């Protein structure tokens, strides 16, 4: 039985459709990983093609420069192939790959590793109607005029990419892994070497801040508390 069924999430009662899937989704990474590790020639080509694009994108959004991103993507693929035989559990391949990529990105942008971490408080991200008059009153509703079955075209893609790049790194890294690359909470925690609770907190704040209407993210926020 699915967890959602077990704990009684109700689509009808809440008026929300739970289908977060995207039509035409790629095939399973785990299947691809297994084929790769058993020496399937076609899997090698498919793997390189699929992960090169994903790693390039991830690295670009983490590093900020196309040139760095391409180097990171290629270096990550090389390290994966050099040491994949040390991987005991093929189902963990994806999180392993992104952990390598994350470390490569940090090496490219070593300064950022030591840069002050920016935290966003939940109050800052509340829409105006939830605010107490003193918060920034950020409006997340910028996407609401868009249809539910929206397709990401060039302009929207550019806006979304820009919004992700504006996020402070601790939120950007989580949003990229959870929502763009679709790693699980646990996989994301493993890649970033943080707790699952921290992943959830940062993901929520990152999602809320991820709107072109939010404007620049403040760079001088103190540590925020856990959300309510």
């Amino acid at each position, binding site marked *: 039985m699915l967890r959602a069924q077990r*704990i009684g999430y109700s689509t009808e009662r809440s008026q929300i459709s739970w289908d977060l899937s995207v039509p035409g989704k790629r095939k399973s990474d785990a299947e691809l990983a297994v084929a790769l590790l058993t020496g399937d020639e076609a899997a090698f080509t498919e793997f390189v093609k699929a992960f090169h694009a994903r790693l390039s994108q991830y690295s670009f959004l983490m590093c900020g420069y196309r040139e760095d991103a391409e180097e990171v993507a290629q270096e990550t693929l090389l390290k994966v192939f050099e040491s994949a035989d040390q991987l005991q559990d093929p189902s963990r391949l994806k999180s392993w790959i992104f952990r390598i990529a994350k470390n490569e990105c940090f090496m490219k942008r070593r300064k950022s590793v030591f840069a002050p971490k920016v935290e966003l408080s939940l109050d800052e991200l509340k829409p105006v109607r*939830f605010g107490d008059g003193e918060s920034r009153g950020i409006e997340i509703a910028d996407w609401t005029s868009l249809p539910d079955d929206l397709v990401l075209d060039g302009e929207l893609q550019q806006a979304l990419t820009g919004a992700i790049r504006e996020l402070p790194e601790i939120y950007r890294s989580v949003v990229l892994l959870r929502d763009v690359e679709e790693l699980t909470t646990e996989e994301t925690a493993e890649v970033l070497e943080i707790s699952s609770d921290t992943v959830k907190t940062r993901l929520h704040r990152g999602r809320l801040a991820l709107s072109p209407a939010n404007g620049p993210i403040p760079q001088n926020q103190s540590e925020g508390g856990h959300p309510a």
Partner: protein
Amino acid sequence: MNDNDCSRVFGLLSEYLDRDLAPATCEELEDHLRGCPECVEFVRSLKRNIQLCRQLGECMPAPPLGQEVMAGLRRAYEEMLARRRLSK
């Protein structure tokens, strides 16, 4: 329903969409949503953000890899497979 309920719900929406909430909390939140179209619209907006991010993961092309790079990757792959066979 009042703004305090909305404010509490606000902190839980990602876990709700990710189906990570405890059953009792989920029930409570859904009770609120049934009477609060503004919060429902807010959840839809958040959901749309997530869906757009997922599409982003599919649509950004990378520049083609050069022959030299591909040859290096293939060499590393074949060496890895050889080591893997030996270790079994």
